[in-house]
């Protein structure tokens, strides 16, 4: 029987598509009976969806620097 302690690692394997059907079934069964692990799973998914936004947007200066380089490259290509 799967223990709560094993759920964080098994949950990540599930999300990565790395669980065989037996392990998947075992995790699903555990989640059915354990509200805390269901909460963990739900919040882990939210956390992982948030990671791509952690850095925030670039500043105007950073954007301008990239655009200037790209334009230089385009002009040197045209000539």
């Amino acid at each position: 029987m799967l223990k709560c302690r094993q759920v964080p690692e098994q949950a990540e394997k599930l999300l990565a598509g790395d669980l065989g059907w037996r392990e998947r079934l075992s995790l699903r069964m555990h989640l059915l009976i354990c509200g805390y692990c269901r909460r963990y799973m739900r919040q882990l998914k939210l956390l992982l969806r948030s990671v791509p936004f952690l850095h925030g947007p670039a500043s105007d200066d950073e954007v301008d620097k990239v655009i200037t380089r790209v334009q230089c490259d385009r002009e040197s290509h045209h000539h």
Partner: protein
Amino acid sequence: MVAAFDEDASFVAALREGDQHAFSQLVRHHHRALLAVARGLVGESEAEEVVQLAWIKAHRALPTFEGRSALRTWLSRIVINEARMQLRSRRREVFLEDLAVEGDDALADRFAASGHWAQPPHRWQEDSPEALLTAEQLRDCLERLMREMPDNQRLLLEMRDAGGIDFDEICNTLSISASNARVLLHRARSRLFRLVDHYEETGEC
């Protein structure tokens, strides 16, 4: 605030047609995340140049972007290729100097000897990334945690969770085993989870 960013079909179409405003938006949204990936691969001093060169390549390749992966993933791949070329030209390789997994699993002490939760996760109030990352204090704490994280754990998190690069590609790039990569990533995620959970409980971190 998390900038809402809509990668819908019309935005991608505008990029492919060379719309400069759309390209500026693309840069604004992804530049810092790409810098973080580059930093982990080539170090602070060369990361900026690697990302600048990657943007030039991306701009040239956008008309042929087929949308088979998310833009972030596509851009991250270009940065990784650029970083590898840069390292090759200096006869260096991408490798994680320290593969040791530092510290304990950040969630280990949340469980009792029986294997059940001793301190279960708190109920988070938010249900979207936008809502979760609205709190400036939490964002600051997360940024600090990322800075202080062991390099190898941070790089895994940046490549997989922020960059959307798949596991096999990460393992090839870094020459590490899948099991090692999985442990490093799990440690990084557990640190983030613990911090957010503590913030949700106490309002501070």
